[in-house]
């Protein structure tokens, strides 16, 4: 395991706010910790907040990226556990958006003593339709089209062909020069994250969650239908489902007051 300070640097860890209770906020697929900036002003008055970027996202240290590790959500869960270890945290409330709700579940099952509670914002343990019992909302072909779309949206960006020229056997040189945009990530890294997120099935892990959990579901979410939120809340033994009257998947950005209030009520 890398040195403690290296982990803080690797995952661009930021600590803000004050309070006895600590919240770890984990961004979802696509963007970085900036996603939380609309809700942090409310939360930092009550709690200590730990913000970070997964390796490969935002301002994390891309040279630490390892394709094998980050090909499954377990690798991202390791990031979470290592950050908790580096900061000597315990009894934290983990707040995960979208795929990070699943990542948090994996971390909380592996080291339950670190986590007191989980808050899942628009979670989905499986995006695939698996009839007759489960409808994640998407067919395999939709998700392959997404991967193709991601390729096309990065095509003109820096480093599209760079890994090819450098060769995959030299990970140290695999240092991306990212553009300033907050959603931009290295194309191969983003695609690997997308595959780990959208082609996986973590439904079976939910019932092993011991911590009290709050599921915040958006009323109209193109990525996770209300039935998915209900499924998640039903599977987790000690959970509460709260449906937020909103349209969209990033309710912590579009409805920060409501989301902030729900978190404060739940944690207090």
């Amino acid at each position, binding site marked *: 395991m890398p040195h403690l300070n290296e982990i803080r640097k690797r995952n661009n860890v930021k600590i803000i706010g004050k309070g006895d209770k600590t919240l770890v906020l984990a961004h979802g697929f696509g963007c970085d910790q900036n996603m939380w900036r609309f809700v942090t002003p409310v939360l930092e008055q009550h709690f200590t907040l730990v913000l970070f970027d997964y390796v490969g996202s935002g301002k994390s240290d891309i040279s630490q990226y390892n394709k094998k590790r980050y090909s499954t959500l377990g690798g991202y869960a390791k990031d979470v556990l290592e950050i908790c270890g580096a900061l000597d945290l315990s009894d934290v409330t983990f707040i995960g958006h979208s795929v990070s709700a699943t990542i948090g579940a994996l971390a909380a099952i592996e080291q339950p003593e670190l986590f007191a509670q989980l808050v899942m914002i628009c979670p989905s343990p499986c995006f695939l339709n698996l009839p007759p019992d489960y409808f994640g909302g998407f067919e395999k072909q939709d998700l392959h089209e*997404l991967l*193709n779309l991601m*390729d*096309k*949206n990065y095509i003109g960006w820096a480093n599209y062909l760079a890994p090819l020229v450098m060769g995959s056997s030299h990970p140290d040189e695999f240092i991306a020069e990212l553009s300033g945009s907050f959603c931009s990530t290295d194309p191969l890294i983003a695609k690997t994250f997308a595959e780990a997120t959208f082609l996986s099935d973590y439904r079976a892990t939910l019932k092993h969650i011991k911590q009290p959990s709050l599921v915040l579901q958006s009323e109209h979410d*193109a990525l996770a239908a209300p039935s998915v939120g209900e499924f998640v809340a039903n599977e987790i033994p000690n959970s509460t489902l709260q449906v937020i009257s909103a349209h969209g998947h*990033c309710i912590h*950005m579009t409805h920060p007051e409501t989301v902030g209030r729900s978190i404060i009520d739940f944690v207090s």
Partner: protein
Amino acid sequence: MPLHQLDDNRVTDYSADYFLSGALVTNADNVIVYVNTYFKKELHWHCNELIGKYIDKILTKSSKIFLQSYVLPTLIHEKKCQEMQLIMLSAQGERMAVTVNAQLDEKGFIYWSFFNATQRDKLYDELIKTREKLEAQTERLQSLASTDELTSLLNRREMDYRSVLLLEQAKRTHRSVALLVIDIDDFKQINDTYGHLEGDRVLKELGQCLKKISRQTDLVARYGGEEFLIMLPDTHRADTLIFCQRLHQLIAEIKVGSEGLTVSVGACMSDSNSTFTELFKHADNAVYQAKANGKNTTYMHS
């Protein structure tokens, strides 16, 4: 036709309907409040099929994910978003690749512009295919350039490169490394008696045997005609000698005619200053010593 007031108080009748691109406005709830006639002319949507509906209606499922994961967060964060590629649906469900630029105002309204990107999409597909082909070729060339064709072991060039790295690492971690030079006894005679095809079989089988006995971290190479090298990281002298003993036993199981194959092995251990060239020189001299000692044996350089 709507009239528009320009900044300098000129009134003009130019309209968004004349543009060969889609113009669309959504409110803070992502509900469509305006579309220009491009959507009717090119995509056969009736205006009333779109107004009051979520923007999701004109996008494929994959594009919805992209919209929710990238486009909308970027818009909320940066107020604008440019050159995104999405797939739009016509009223008949036909797909059209589009480039999207959009900006967000203070009231949460988003002004979207869509440009047909069908040709660009084909180019992208071609570029992706080319990249995949290049990746596969690179992998193949890397493998060809680093392995010996007959035995699939590392070739001489790759061995020279990797052994230097391995020695540097061993120096940093203060571990000792063993180098073995393995030379088939009387290989010329095998070729002369049984032919070159049989010679090749022996080389191939010996390669497999060396690979089998080695750990994953060991470097195993065919270094010359009938000369093989093994570099054993993190290995002491006593372990090296045991390894060589097993090597002789296993190699004897490879049959040439009715006889077991034999090799002579020259071994040497690294110290804190050893270079690969020095180690190789010592191990190579040790092979000659092993041959002089009657073959089918190991000689350790001291």
